């Protein structure tokens, strides 16, 4: 492994650590809180809306930084998605994700963090999520190329 990719790997590890702490502090690792936020009606808990309200403005600053720089600090090019097209798979896939999120109360990041903490349901969820990702690969192979 060359020096640059070693630094990138170390950076990604630190980012993962901070991200996990952010998820734990915010309450996203408690499925009942997530469900309480998604479940409208009596006893609705809006607090998790503030996770995005906290995250997005902070992250906007780094996109501003990006506009003034030709490359990131540890790589020779940007890898940010440029696609603008709203496609059917985007909407159908997002709807499916919403269905699973509302059913289980886990999304991928909090599930991995909670699995790391040894939370049993999160471990089941992560195993099923990996299977679902594999299943999509099979599905894509038969529908896109077939």
């Amino acid at each position, binding site marked *: 492994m060359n020096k640059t990719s070693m630094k990138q790997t170390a950076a990604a590890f630190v980012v993962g650590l901070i991200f996990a702490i952010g998820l734990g502090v915010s309450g996203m690792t408690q499925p009942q809180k997530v469900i309480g936020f998604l479940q409208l009606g009596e006893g609705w808990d809006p607090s998790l809306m503030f996770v995005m309200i906290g995250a997005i403005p902070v992250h906007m600053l780094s996109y501003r930084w990006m506009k003034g720089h030709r490359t990131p600090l540890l790589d020779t090019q940007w890898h940010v998605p440029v696609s603008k097209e709203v496609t059917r798979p985007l909407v159908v896939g997002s709807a499916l994700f919403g269905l699973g999120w509302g059913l289980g109360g*886990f999304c991928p990041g909090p599930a991995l963090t909670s699995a790391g903490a040894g939370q049993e349901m999160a471990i089941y969820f992560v195993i099923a999520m990996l299977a*679902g990702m594999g299943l999509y690969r099979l599905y894509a192979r038969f529908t896109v190329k077939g």
Partner: protein
Amino acid sequence: MMNSILMALTGGALIGLAASLMLILNGRVTGISGIVNGFIGDVRKDLWRGAFILGLLIGGLALGALQPDMFVNTSGRSVGVVLIAGLIVGFGTVMGSGCTSGHGVCGIARFSVRSLVATATFMVIGMLTATLFNALVGG
């Protein structure tokens, strides 16, 4: 309530900071479903993906040791429901090119129309699902 709003804001700011470091240092979007899917696609090619996932897991392990309350699960969802949920989330996030982190945080922060549409879709469907599940099965 006030306390959980402050915690959500603080945690959110940390998530925004983590995603900022990933962007400024590595030039990448911190989309967790995409990173996991890319990692299982080719484990050897991009070690940074594995390192990020390891960071999430070890972060969880450390946090669980210090603050076990953060990982208490009283949702009442059965193992069967959780397994089905995981399967659908895995399938849907790859099909829809992202989840709460990639579309909801990174995408919206750069005003991506695709991410705005994706986020609105999974929020609305997530809310409908949780609300209906509660009405039909009980929370």
